[in-house]
């Protein structure tokens, strides 16, 4: 056994504390510089306040973008936040994490004029930050309806649904398997997008409406049955996200050094001392979406020497936006296209390399990239929630819902990543939860009459 393989066969033998405290601090602090009050007003003043604004139309939650920006330009930051939050209760997270370059900022008419859209994301952040600093409250609850609704999952979809139901006077109980609420806001988004414990701050603001209780450590299907929820509540909303990671289906996938990107990020987001995370020398990431980009950048920022993102098709086919790809490249991540993983090199139960073919490209040669760490970021899938008792109609492996987010089972709604037809963004999960809540409300009121 050579010395190097001996080291590698032991997970704890990955180098630790590659960086000093200040470097970790720097690498994982807020990626955006928030606007000052003056720069926010100047930027807001650039907005043309379009008629039937394209930015608003493309926003999955339909935020009145020109309206809130105009309020900022009039120094009414709190009013602006009110406008944002009334459509999107997670306006703060979306301001940090939305791929605005493919949504509102893509549609901004200023792109046509001078290639520089209004910085809508940063303006939204400014307004929501001002509001949280001020302690302003925007919502009140309607008179108690006497109805109780169960929600599975305290992610963006579940929390959005819960908040809207609470304002409408219903009692909500959320069952959440994790210790903290927020779903991927807390456990999945890149650390530098959600710096400063923002996810929990936002959760607290959402819960302050009252009427929502969260039962943590309660995994539906394990700690409580789905049937019990159906019996004990007037309606059920599922916002369970995608609990399972897709596998490469290659020999040796169980070897050490081969990990799911989301599991690693989950750990990264929770760990106190970033220096304790294992970091490889030659890291390969397989995938072409947001998760792949996020793990590649974060492992690089943890001190990995060489990070290569391998995607099986062309650059245009990647789910990650051009901006995200450019960001990864600027961080020193290498991106290779037309790279289809066909085999894993394993020595002593430890990954040492990944073999690729040129995928669908013309050339079928194979080549090997050395790797002492391999991240799988090829997508998530729906984890089965309960065996046997209940079956939902599905589409593309996810729960099928109608425009009101009703599942095929009466009395059960669903939204967010777990339903078909979405785009796997926090903002869409928020919209699903909101639409489901409105539909649940109408159904409960109707049944009453």
């Amino acid at each position: 056994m050579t010395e190097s393989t001996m080291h590698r066969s032991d997970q704890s033998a990955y180098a630790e504390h590659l960086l000093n405290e200040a470097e970790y601090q720097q690498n994982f602090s807020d990626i955006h510089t928030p606007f000052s009050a003056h720069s926010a007003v100047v930027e807001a003043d650039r907005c043309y306040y379009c008629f039937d604004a394209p930015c608003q139309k493309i926003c999955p939650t339909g935020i009145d973008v020109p309206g809130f920006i105009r309020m900022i330009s009039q120094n009414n930051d709190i009013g602006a936040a009110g406008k944002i939050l009334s459509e999107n209760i997670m306006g703060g997270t979306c301001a940090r994490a939305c791929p605005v370059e493919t949504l509102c900022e893509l549609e901004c008419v200023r792109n046509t004029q001078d290639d520089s859209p209004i910085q809508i994301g940063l303006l939204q952040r400014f307004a929501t930050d001002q509001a949280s600093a001020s302690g302003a409250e925007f919502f009140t609850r309607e008179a108690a309806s006497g109805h109780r609704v169960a929600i599975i999952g305290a992610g963006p979809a579940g929390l959005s649904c819960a908040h809207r139901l609470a304002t409408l006077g219903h009692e909500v109980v959320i069952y959440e398997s994790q210790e903290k609420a927020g779903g991927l806001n807390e456990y999945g988004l890149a650390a530098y997008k959600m710096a400063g414990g923002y996810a929990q701050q936002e959760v607290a603001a959402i819960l302050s409406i009252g009427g929502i209780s969260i039962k943590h450590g309660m995994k539906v299907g394990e700690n409580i049955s789905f049937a019990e929820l159906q019996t004990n509540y007037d309606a059920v909303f599922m916002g369970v996200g995608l609990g399972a990671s897709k596998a490469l289906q290659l020999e040796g996938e169980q070897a050490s050094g081969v990990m799911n990107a989301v599991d690693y990020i989950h750990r990264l987001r929770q760990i106190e001392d970033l220096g304790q995370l294992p970091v490889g020398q030659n890291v390969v990431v397989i995938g072409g979406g947001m998760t792949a980009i996020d793990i590649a950048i974060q492992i690089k920022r943890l001190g990995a020497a060489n990070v290569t993102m391998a995607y099986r098709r062309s650059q245009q086919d990647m789910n990650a936006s051009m901006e995200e790809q450019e960001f990864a490249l600027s961080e020193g991540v290498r991106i290779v296209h037309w790279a289809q993983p066909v085999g894993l090199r394993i020595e002593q139960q430890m990954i040492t390399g990944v073999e690729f073919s040129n995928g669908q490209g013309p050339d079928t040669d194979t080549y090997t990239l050395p790797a002492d760490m391999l991240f799988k970021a090829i997508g998530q899938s729906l984890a089965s929630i309960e065996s046997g008792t209940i079956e939902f109609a599905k589409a593309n492996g996810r729960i099928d819902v109608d425009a009101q987010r009703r599942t095929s089972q009466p009395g059960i709604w669903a939204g967010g990543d777990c339903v078909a037809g979405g785009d796997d963004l926090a903002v869409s999960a928020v919209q699903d939860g909101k639409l489901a809540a409105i539909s649940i409300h109408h159904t409960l009121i109707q049944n009453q009459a």
Partner: protein
Amino acid sequence: MIDLKSTFIGIQTPNPFWLASAPPTDKAYNVNRAFEAGWGGVMWKTLGEAGPAIVNVSGPRYGAWHGKDRSLMGLNNIELITDRDLEINLTEIIQVKKDWPDRGVVVSLMVPCEEQAWKDILMRVEDTGADGIELNFGCPHGMSERGMGAAVGQVPEYVEMVTSWCKQHSDLATIVKLTPNITDVRNSARAAVRGGADAVSLINTINSIMGVDLDQMKMSPSVGAQGAHGGYCGPAVKPIALHMLSEIARDAQCKGIPISGIGGVTDWHDAAEFMALGATNVQVCTAVMTYGFRIVDDMIDGLSRYLADQGMSSVDQLIGAAVPSVTDWNQLDLNYVVKAQIDQNSCIKCGRCHIVCEDTSHQAISTEINGERGFEVKDEECVGCNLCVNVCPVENCITLRELHDEVDPRTGEMVSAEYRNWTQHPNNSMA
């Protein structure tokens, strides 16, 4: 590059850019710096009669109206005439004029409305070698309550009387500075002409209150517990100044009296516009109080290039060139017809033209082109009002097209090439 040499009532200066009577011209120190920077002439900060010094407030004397990026659109002040000793001012004027023989130095004056008071001060100014005097009949605050400044300027008989005293008791070239705080500036200008003025200058500042501090619930700025109205100037007043200037320039009774244009002049472009509407030179105050004296550099360069581009060989060719284009409403050609048209290549589809036309005008802009978002003018509704042009954020995207030899789809009538104004119109019962 065209030489900008300028002659104003016999005063020769290297360019037509003067500093208006105000803080920038209050001391030799400032004036020397201005001349070093290249200014053509100065109207020395207004002098009062000998005696106890003028007392200014020690609280804020300026207030401003800002754009969102803090660009200064308008300035207001409650400063009085010079609060420095008369003798010091006169001594400095003598020295400055000696040191800068090729620049213009005119002394602004304001003394009580008594013949002797004017006689006294005129004698003193004549001894300085200054090129002339400017009668401050405009200051709208502080001095007017004492029967001076605007209190004189608002009564044509007083304007005429004081002007004639000055002409009678001195040989100094006399410029009458007019207040805009009147209903028809021509009455003041005609009075100056009758009094024998060599020139008029306008505008002085406009009565104004800048705003209210809504937290402290008091007008702002204020001097302690209360504030008082002040004089408004800067870019915001330029359109008002241009109007008053052109009224005098095209008034027969003013007999082509030379005019010095003032009010919001900030760059060469503004200066050229004032001159085109009849000003022989321009005076600047707010712009130098915003940016310093160095702006005269770009004014000189810009105006000179502009004249060259226009094929003009001196500033004289610019003076009054656009005056014939100004007329009264009842002379406008009612047969002239235009329609807005939107250049689809430069349109960014913000829809502002549509919403303003739909909500506030003639419902003449549609929102779809072939089923897609897009904005187009409906000729059958468009009255050519120019509102869409004004609100469009893209310059030259919306333009007005003249109709000739064709039917106006709005009226269904052939557009006539014949000139017809309101006085000739069949709908005018007085015609």
